[in-house]
């Protein structure tokens, strides 16, 4: 199974890697427990920075699509197929839409909502 990235695409490179691996899981090109290449191998093969692939792997691990087992390497998560179907970005947008709707109904202006959102995002 091969993944392909387009370096001229507007979609960020790490995001392309994430999506391609999720697609590979969904289409069963790779299955639960299958080993994945190391960050270094994939980055060198795709001529990308190691940090880009590391970021993609971090996001996939957060979404429980892959699991890293120390020096033994990175593997496809046992429930990867189920987790691939969950679109976190879509879920975030839906949650925010509900919150924004509630704020507007309470009489808040868009400007106030933006300021409040920015404040809430402060670490």
């Amino acid at each position, binding site marked *: 199974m091969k993944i392909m990235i387009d370096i001229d695409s507007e979609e960020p490179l790490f995001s392309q890697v994430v999506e391609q691996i999720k697609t590979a899981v969904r289409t069963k*090109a790779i299955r639960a427990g299958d080993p994945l290449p190391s960050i270094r191998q*994939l980055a060198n093969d795709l001529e990308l920075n190691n940090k880009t692939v590391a970021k993609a792997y971090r996001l996939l691990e957060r979404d429980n699509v892959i699991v890293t087992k120390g020096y033994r390497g990175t593997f496809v998560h046992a429930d990867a197929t189920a987790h691939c179907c969950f679109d976190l970005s879509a879920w975030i947008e839906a949650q925010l839409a509900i919150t924004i709707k509630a704020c507007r109904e309470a009489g808040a202006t868009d400007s106030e909502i933006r300021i409040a959102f920015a404040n809430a995002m402060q670490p």
Partner: protein
Amino acid sequence: MPADFNMTAVLAVMYTVFLSQIYLISVHYPRKMCARIREVVESYPPAEYPHLYPGPYVYYAESARKHGLKIFMAANYIIAAIGLGILCMMMLSGYEPALLGGDEIFVMFYFILQASPLLYIQITEWRYYALMRESFTAKHRSASLAPRRMSQFVSPALVGAAIVFYVLWLVFYLSDQGPVATWSGEVYATLAVITGINVFYVLYLRRMVFGKKVDPYRSDEDRDRQIRVMGKVYGISSIGISLFLAFTQAADRFGFEVFDPVLISFYLQLCIVAGLGFVFRDITVNSLNFKVYRKQADEPS
């Protein structure tokens, strides 16, 4: 104490091995290399395979097609003539090898001279690949999701054999050196150099397996095949070093140092046969995928 040898037999072996060294390294393999380069240039011309000839290599290819590698071959023939001249002088002067060894240094010097045109080709190859990477403009890049393992490229049996021979040499060598406290700097230097060479082989192979592609256009299949051949070359080379050192050590111990020049010549020939010979035999021009060097549809013209 040197053993008693029939000097005529020693000289016969010596001249045969040196003639073989002259022919193999300065005639046979340079000719094969030229024929290979010419085959590539004629079968895959720059007009149809532009990515194969980055920068000035378009002109070099045209020159190689028209004239062959004249300077390269002339340099090799001159070196071969020098070698034959040395052999003739040895015969005419009634040369006899030193019974306690030491003449092998001249074999080494001559080998360095013989290897210099090949080394020059090797150095220009690095520049060639650097130019190729600079001109690499593909917008789409692909990678396999299958992890690579060293064992896919180097036979574990060969690695095991190399380790066994290394350990055997180590035991044999150190058994002759006395207690650790009495070891000279030469012993430490020998251990460091031989261990260093083996470590270098491992690290270089790791770089080939997991590192960036040297040739960004080369297909994965061709790349894997090349790494396999290099794995075999390094494995055999490691065994060769251990065996060569064990033999020279045995020569010192059992008094047949008179054969040291023959041993080193034989070993150096083995290195060239294992290096270039395996590459030429296992990676023939016809078996490589040259389609990757054509202009791709998504490339700007």
